[in-house]
């Protein structure tokens, strides 16, 4: 069942890289699981460990001691590009990330994140530059993300508004299950289907295996 998100305060991890793809977030060899267990360990795995399994020196972003427990990421353009694997937002959530600030997110990742109450917060390039400067000046300051008010409050007391798809916002605030929501519309869907017959029947002509 989905989790809700209303308001969270946290310090920030900056990863100043663009085009962070889902193969970096969760390498494919960790996709052989049939559940969601232990995905926090897979997050950014190949950035954190050498191919022969040694922890890299210096340690990668999320392994830095002062970054433990931080729940927000500040990253470069086009975060989450590549594969549709929902393991990427699962791994981020499992590690403890609740919101990500970027100028843009890949479409499939963004949809997957929203289904896991992980907030993709899109900011303008100018705002991103300002946030980067603010982070550099105060890397241990707490930011507050308020989904109800659609407002981010920064450690200097300033704040700015952000947008999240209004439907997703409502669902996340209430922790509502989207599938249950659609299942309640099944009479309308069935009525539509009565005049729109299926275009293919995959079960016909398939030899028994």
């Amino acid at each position: 069942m989905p989790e809700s998100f209303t308001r969270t305060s946290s310090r920030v991890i900056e990863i100043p890289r663009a085009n962070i793809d889902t193969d970096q977030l969760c390498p494919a060899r960790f996709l052989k699981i049939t559940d969601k267990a232990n995905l926090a360990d897979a997050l950014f795995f190949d950035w954190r460990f050498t191919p022969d399994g040694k922890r890299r020196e210096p340690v990668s972003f999320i392994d830095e001691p002062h970054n433990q427990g931080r729940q927000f990421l500040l990253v470069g353009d086009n975060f989450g590009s590549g594969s549709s694997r929902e393991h990427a937002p699962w791994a981020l959530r499992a590690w403890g990330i609740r919101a990500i600030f970027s100028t843009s997110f890949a479409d499939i990742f963004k949809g997957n994140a929203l289904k896991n109450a992980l907030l993709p917060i899109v900011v303008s390039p100018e705002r991103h530059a300002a946030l980067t400067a603010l982070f550099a000046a105060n890397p241990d300051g707490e930011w507050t993300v308020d989904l109800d008010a659609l407002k981010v409050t920064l450690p200097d007391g300033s704040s700015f508004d952000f947008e999240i798809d209004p439907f997703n916002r409502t669902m996340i605030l209430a922790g509502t299950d989207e599938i249950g929501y659609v299942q309640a519309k099944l009479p309308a869907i069935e009525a539509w289907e009565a005049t729109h017959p299926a275009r293919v029947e995959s079960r016909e002509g398939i030899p028994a295996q």
Partner: protein
Amino acid sequence: MADRPRTLVEKIWSDHAVSLRDDAVSLSDHVTASDPGAPAILAIDLHLVHEVTSPQAFTGLRARGAKVRKPGQTVATADHSIPTTDPSIPIADELARKQLAQIEENCREFGIPFYGRGSGSRGIVHVIGPELGLTQPGMTIVCGDSHTATHGAFGALAFGIGTSEIEMVLATQTLLQRKPKTFRVQIDGRLQPGVGAKDIILALIAEIGVGGGTGHVFEFTGDAIRALSMEERMTVCNMSIEGGARAGLIAPDETTFAYLKGRKFAPQGVAWDEAVAAWRKLPSDEGATYDRTIVIDGDKLEPMVTYGTNPGMGMPISGRIPAPADVGPAFRDDLERALEYMGLESGKPIAGQKLDVVFIGSCTNGRIEDMRAAASVLRGRHVAPGLRVLIVPGSQQVKREAEVEGLDLVFKAAGAEWRESGCSMCIAMNGDQLEPGQYGISTSNRNFQGRQGKGGRSFLASPLTAAASAVTGVVTDPRTLTDVAVGFLFAEQTSAVEAH
């Protein structure tokens, strides 16, 4: 209203939106907050399922006590984690074995047709959908895989979804969706010999960048697109996601209908005639408008190859590796890191870079025409000493066709490995992988760090370029091979297209 010119995407959208207006569905049943606009409920015609992204969706389905609502509009196969070794050899990787057993069990329990290991119809999900005739114009098609865009080659709205959405489609045969923006990609002119579909899409992504199509759906148009075979069109649409677009479509035409006619799940008899009549109405209307448009001159395209760590870092094969100082500040850091990872030197020609492995296959370039292209180069030649060359058909049907044509013998005689079908080294989940530091040229779709194996370094290119490089052991422009070979190749490709 009826006269407003519409795009292909708009037509498919309005044919499938259970509620047409974004805000037509009241939220009041489930959501008590003020009533924000809900997305459309989009009916899904075909749901393709594979072993890697589906298990948690079936677990969710069980937890809510739900059934698969339309098992007859669902098809499953095993492609990602499946070994490409002989099916009589037991699967050594315990996790892969468990995952493959899991999808079989899930399909049995929920009544979904499943093409598993040993089935003659098994293959990469985006290869078998079209070859079985399941993929048809005007459909909505989804799969828990970002390369679902492949099916857009038939004029279907096809896109990748996450596991939560897989569960949604299993439970309801619909998705909650916002209408995407449209991005027209017009490829004019005629491709030069040695240049193909893969080069078109790599050139587009190099031009617009990996996020260039975000929020949009591509529609590929223009003479160079019209001249492509169905399989080549699939190659183009397949990598739409690499340009940031969830889907990429090509309007159906006679090439599409000729490919589909007589395939197992295609309409037959009167139903076929009716379907074709409906499909003819799908192409975008004259005067339809797009949110964005780009025009590329197909005459000027060269064989393309990537040099970096995302598919947007591509260049003409005759070019030199770019220098961080020559690019904008936004791209400079990315490029520096990519060149460091790749171990490449700015200013040097990309052609001539040393290789350890060649991979020919994947949902991008694992179809029979790709096998023929590779064979046309490798026939009578031998792969370079010390080079590992894997040729992996996209499906068991492609494998059989290739073997009927004797292509397997060409590959084996050349010193290449000829394997069972699957995703293989494209995603490196099944044991087929680059070793740390190795260089591979690959006909697949992603050159992300570690994508083809921890620490592996990938060059993406066409089957012709990959095969030419297999012969020399270095990144090689296929046009530099003898004219005889290239001329032969094009005669063969043309006759293959005409034979359809």
